[in-house]
């Protein structure tokens, strides 16, 4: 089965208080040198059929209308290579 990954991130101009909280916690735990943290979402979609242009177009449509809110979020769609 083919897997398509949709990553959704808050747009750069939208404040991400969760990412900021994670960033503030890192030095306390001894993880120094991390300048910024942004937190997002990853969706792994397992396709029944082949990953062709039509399937990817449908997934982009799903990402645009449902998985991401494009008012505040950007998304990327990529095909993940099958594990051997």
């Amino acid at each position, binding site marked *: 089965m083919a897997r398509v990954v949709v990553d959704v991130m*808050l747009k750069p101009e*939208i*404040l991400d*208080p*969760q990412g900021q*909280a994670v960033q503030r916690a890192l030095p306390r735990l001894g993880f120094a040198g991390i300048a910024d943290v942004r937190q997002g979402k990853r969706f792994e979609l397992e396709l029944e059929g082949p990953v062709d242009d039509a399937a990817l177009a449908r997934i982009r449509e799903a990402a645009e209308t*449902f*998985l991401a*809110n494009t*008012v*505040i979020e950007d998304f990327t769609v990529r095909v993940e290579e099958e594990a051997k």
Partner: protein
Amino acid sequence: MTTRVGVVTFPGSLDDRDAQRAVRLAGAEPVALWHRDKDLHQVDAVVLPGGFSYGDYLRCGAISRFSPVMDTIIEQARQGMPVLGICNGFQVLCESHLLPGALTRNDSLHFICRDQKLRIENADTAWTSDYSSGQEIVVPLKNGEGRFVADEHVLDELEAEGRVVARYLDVNPNGSYRDIAGITNATGNVVGLMPHPEHAVEPLTGPTTEGLGFFTSVLKQLVNA
């Protein structure tokens, strides 16, 4: 004929009964609407109540927005039916694109629950005509994702067209841009509000009764229509 105001129950709605009660105290007949039922049962207006529909999964309001009842509500709202979205209902209205912008995580990351002072900025909408412009009211506020955000040009447009319905006073509880607590669409029939007027309709349970005006406003508007 009694005015009928529908209140939608989604899985995870919390304030649907309080909204129904507010509708009744305002003098209208509350009608329970079910998320899976496309039929609006001849209601004259709709309230989308607060709560955590679908557990706030994906994004607040993102899944409810695609429920069968919303198809009909979106269609009717575009034709002028008054719709008030409170808290989670406001989130559903933004996800439906009936209102611009989005509601995001409070800047403090805390869930905030307090009696909140607001200024009514626009007393000409279907839901605020019983207030006067500039009137200050206190109603409960309770949210974790109530921070209103939108592009600068959208914010400027909202301000220029008088579409900011209510603004936070004294304290901005969640980091909302320009202290925005509620907005309306271009035609003034759809209003989204983060605080909870339906919890401020009786002296016994509310900090004030100043929330009742939202429900009496729509009643007046419908009776005079």
